[in-house]
């Protein structure tokens, strides 16, 4: 089969299609899971890091990277998982945070975790229901104004 040779930016662009299976609006680059793309001649190495150690989405993400590259005729590649430096929500892109908010998840707020804004009505009159939410990376809040419960992507 004919192998395409792409540069780092082009591969990065292809991988924009790879999203978190739990939050399908946000790509692995937006989330900070995609750490590097290393190209040596025509061999591609995609470097990723898990969010939480038990995150069940990682296997699905690897599968998705695999499928995306193959679909674009890239066969000579490897996916490497690294643990260090440990993933942090500081790596989330501004674009990613905006997408989360539009999806109904309050993005991480490193300056003030006691004052989380409701993603539905923008009120700051909210309260924590549980530190642990629908996935390891989120906690559960409710808005005291519009009364909607919502997920908050916690700082990590």
């Amino acid at each position: 089969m004919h192998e395409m040779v792409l540069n780092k930016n082009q591969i990065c662009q292809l991988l924009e299609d790879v999203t978190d299976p739990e939050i399908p609006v946000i790509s692995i680059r937006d989330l900070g899971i995609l750490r590097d793309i290393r190209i040596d001649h025509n061999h591609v190495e995609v470097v990723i890091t898990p969010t939480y150690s038990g995150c069940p989405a990682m296997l699905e993400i690897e599968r998705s990277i695999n499928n995306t590259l193959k679909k674009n005729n890239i066969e000579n590649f490897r996916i490497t998982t690294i643990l260090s430096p440990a993933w942090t929500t500081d790596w989330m892109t501004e674009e990613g945070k905006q997408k989360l908010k539009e999806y109904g998840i309050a993005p991480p707020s490193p300056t003030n975790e006691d004052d989380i804004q409701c993603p539905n009505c923008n009120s700051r009159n909210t309260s924590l229901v549980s530190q642990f939410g629908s996935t390891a990376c989120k906690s559960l809040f409710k808005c005291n104004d519009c009364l909607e419960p919502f997920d908050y992507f916690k700082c990590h």
Partner: protein
Amino acid sequence: MNNHLFNYTLQQADNCLILGQRLGEWCGHGPILEQDIAMTNIALDLIGQSRMLYQYAAEVQGDGKTEDDLAYLRDAWDFKNVLLVEQPNGDFAKTILRQFLFDSFNCYFYEALKDSNDEKLAAIAAKSHKETLYHLKWSADWVLRLGDGTEESHERIQSALNELWPYSAEIIIASDADHDAKTNGYGVNLEEIQSRRDSKIEEVLEEATLTAPEDTFSHSGGKSGTHTEHLGYILADLQFLQRAYPGNEW
């Protein structure tokens, strides 16, 4: 193979796997939905941590075995977890108290292990430490709520404390692997962890109006493979599929 490094990694991997499995038993049975989810979230973190540690232990062992062999195909006497984590869930108060006694070790353990001269252990510790901060906050919070809650909740968590107290010290009693790890700089100094852990426990128990038993007797044996009968039942459940259908995959 470095036998001490292998055992040291397994001790922690087994603690995380067995407690993760225990917490998983609560799935669908939690007192309220949010806390059911909290327990399974913590279980998931712990099982994730055990996977990283088993992967590394398998690498240290270097005979082609994998994380799955270590989790699914060892017998009870090969497991090195402390007896605390294999104790049955009991009621919610007992699960909380067991969790608090473990978290108050685990959180400081990983924090110190970040300085390990073994690059892999240091990386696993840095990742896991962040997760255990949430765990400790959650379990300490519930010890307070139950201890300083109603008469019944107080009574239940005090009785859990009386029952589990003799299992609380084993984790800070050094095994051969612990000694080697400290001497060679890839592990932590358990005495330092103990003093931080003890003051945390003391502080939380006092605020929760709970009293630790005065008896200092401590059960032990887990780190060298001598377990309570409970571990066999846990493994029967956890390992059933691989025992009955060897090599089966999803």
